[in-house]
């Protein structure tokens, strides 16, 4: 069902594709689809409303930069607004520090404690953990078992009942270590005695960082819980856990907005290594259920800084071997064609399978063959007769079949591009779009 949602978002974007003037109706439709997508990714409803309002106003009021079409214009605004929300500086410094983890029951604090310990350990820091969960049976055993595996000292008292005392003793025991991570009992905002406990723990530890651990599946409640935790101990970072499921992590986004902090780590898996620094672009792609916009923009930018494409000629429907040469060159820098296509938010548009089949080694061969062609031949492949074919093959050290194959591939590309133009209402092809992605940067 989420697939259908992001498909409708893609459809809405597609409708904007051919337009040159920002169309109020189309933007409204897009914003509405965006709202539904974000809400079904568990982003706080109020936050979604604010966000979509901003996107709507900006899309309608801001003049699209020259050379961009409406779709790119709106996409860029969507992207910027979302990044603005999640992208706060959350540098993880490799220096002595005390980290206090807080969160709801079952959000994955203990597992995360061990994962973070491993993270710092791998960076060459001396790490220790303190188990301040005196409530849940087996909590100490869980943490100490995990720590044993990675050889990190774990301080705790399975029989103790006073978290404050354990933490005080733990801090003494771990004073020679550089990074100390304090795992706490799960609690929620309505349990006032437990909230008082975490306030006390924060005072006792003088924690450098107070990170809130949020389950990726947490729903609308995330904002409220994050706000209360923030009021209590001043959260300065959020960790999303269980991202290996299908949850989108929208709750974490609400929490970040609420605490005005950033996302520090993302946990995605059951082994102790399964923790990553946060990557806003991947996260946003997942929220929206679309390809990785940012990566595409960057890749296109990199690839296009070299030779300029004759976009005008292509827009007129001319596609010569020379264009294909440049295209192959550009694509070569961007990685496999299929991967690139999957990153484009173009919905369910399909290219014929054969287009993908050109491997990078083949691309290199094709270029060598084309190097043996004359300028006239490159501009107008119909000139190539059988005697010319033989000359090209000899010049490139290739067989006649290879040259024929190249020409066949060229014809297929030409047809495909024609098809693309037809499919999306006029002047649209991949190359052209990529160029304009670059233009917006």
């Amino acid at each position, binding site marked *: *069902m*989420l697939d259908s*949602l992001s498909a409708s978002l893609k459809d809405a974007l597609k409708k904007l594709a051919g337009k040159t003037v920002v169309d109020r109706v189309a933007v409204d439709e897009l914003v509405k689809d965006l709202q*539904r997508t974000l*809400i*079904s*990714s*568990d982003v706080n*409803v*109020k936050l979604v409303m604010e966000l979509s309002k901003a996107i709507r106003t900006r899309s309608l009021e801001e003049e699209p930069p020259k050379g961009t079409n409406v779709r790119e214009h709106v996409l860029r605004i969507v992207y910027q607004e979302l990044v603005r929300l999640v992208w706060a500086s959350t540098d993880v410094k490799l220096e002595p520090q005390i980290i206090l983890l807080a969160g*709801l*029951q*079952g*959000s*994955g604090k*203990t597992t995360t404690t061990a994962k973070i310990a491993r993270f710092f350990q791998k960076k060459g820091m001396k790490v220790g953990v303190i188990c301040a969960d005196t*409530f*849940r*049976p*087996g*909590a*100490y*055993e*869980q*943490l100490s*078992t*995990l720590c044993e595996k990675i050889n990190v000292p774990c301080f705790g008292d399975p029989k103790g009942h006073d978290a404050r005392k354990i933490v005080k003793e733990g801090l003494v025991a771990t004073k020679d270590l550089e990074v100390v991570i304090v795992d706490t009992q799960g609690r*929620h*905002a*309505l349990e006032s005695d437990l909230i008082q406990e975490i306030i006390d723990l924060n005072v006792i530890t003088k924690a450098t960082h107070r990170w809130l651990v949020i*389950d*990726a*599946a*947490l*729903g*609308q*409640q*995330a904002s409220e*819980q994050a706000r209360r935790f923030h009021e209590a101990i001043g959260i300065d970072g959020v960790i999303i*856990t*269980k991202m*290996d*499921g*299908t*949850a*989108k992590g*929208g*709750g974490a986004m609400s929490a970040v907005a609420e605490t005005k902090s950033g996302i520090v780590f993302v946990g995605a898996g*059951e082994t102790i290594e399964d923790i990553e620094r946060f990557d806003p672009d991947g996260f946003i792609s997942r929220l929206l259920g679309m390809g990785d916009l940012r990566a595409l923009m960057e890749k296109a930018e990199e690839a296009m800084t070299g030779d300029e494409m004759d976009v005008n000629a292509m827009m007129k429907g001319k596609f010569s071997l020379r264009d294909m040469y440049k295209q192959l060159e550009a694509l070569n820098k961007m990685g496999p064609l299929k991967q690139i296509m999957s990153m484009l938010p173009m919905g369910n548009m399909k290219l014929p399978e054969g287009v993908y089949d050109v491997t990078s080694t083949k691309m290199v061969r094709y270029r060598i063959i084309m190097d043996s062609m004359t300028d006239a031949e490159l501009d107008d492949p119909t000139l190539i007769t059988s005697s010319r074919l033989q000359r090209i093959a000899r010049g490139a050290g290739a067989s006649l079949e290879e040259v024929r194959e190249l020409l066949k591939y060229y014809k297929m590309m030409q047809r495909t591009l024609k098809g693309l133009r037809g499919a999306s209402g006029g002047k649209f092809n991949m190359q052209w779009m990529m160029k304009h992605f670059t233009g917006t940067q």
Partner: protein
Amino acid sequence: MFGGLKKRLLAARNRLDTSIGAVVEPSTAPVETTSPEVPAPETPGFPSLVDKVKILIIDRELVVSDKDVSEALSALEMTLLESDVALPTSDAIIAHVRTSLVGKHRKIGESVDTLVVRALKNALLTVLGNGFDLTEYIKTHEHPVKILFTGVNGTGKTTTIAKVGSYLKKQGFSVVIGAGDTFRAGAIEQIDVHAQRIGIKIIQHQSGADPSAVLFDTVQYAISHKIDVVLADTAGRFHTKANLMSQLEKIKRVMKPDLVIYVDEAVAGNDAVIRAAEFERTIGADAVVLTKADMDSRGGAAISIAHTINKPLMFLGTGQSYDDIIPFSPAQVVEELLGGDA
């Protein structure tokens, strides 16, 4: 736990009231008498032809139009979404309320309130389905009744088993727990401590053992000791992990549970629906337990899960102690949500 939702629904209901009420105001405002609360359980279907004719002849009436309610309904939709009711579920509820309101012939004497409340009540009851009486089930089925608990990581399966165990013990049943979570560090210790505290026998193997074997042994123990109920714990697993799901299928094959209980948390958002559906598809579920209901006063997840997998909600977990578990009764909840006047 439904306190927050109740407040919101009340507000939405008032909005519907005024938007429908506003239409009639000019001509009939003075006639509007608030009739006493009419009990909802009336046939949700359309009035029969005879009734219609009777109404047409005897009572003057008004027809509620789509326009009258659309604004209030979109407000209601927001309310539901904010309460964590998943998108498809809230769509279903809205559609239900819309069809039952629009085109309805409303007698002038009848209060708008009644009409709206009835529509909402029916919509919620349709979505929530019936409850599940575990005590009754155990009484009427052959012993031992084998109950398998499943769910994703960190939803509170182990704690729920301890609570259910304690609940059943109080009802006079004998219970044995199988420590089927052999994966997570500390899981066996956790359930062992719980079992000791509530005084229930537990069958356990070592960490890393085959959970199917543990649970098979548990069932054998129950049979030979004539124990009434087997509660089987399992490791939390994501529906996306094919190997873990097939392990669960194996467990199911080996221990042949009478009931499969799906455990999820009340604070989960839209993903609750996706994973519930996936669990239901791969290994099935006979009833649902929602945990951590004390964290959240909205309870939207209850509504969406029940709607998606169409399985009854059995218990709500509402706190950290063993008694914090309450059997769920949809009629009562709906009555509580909409019954009391503001």
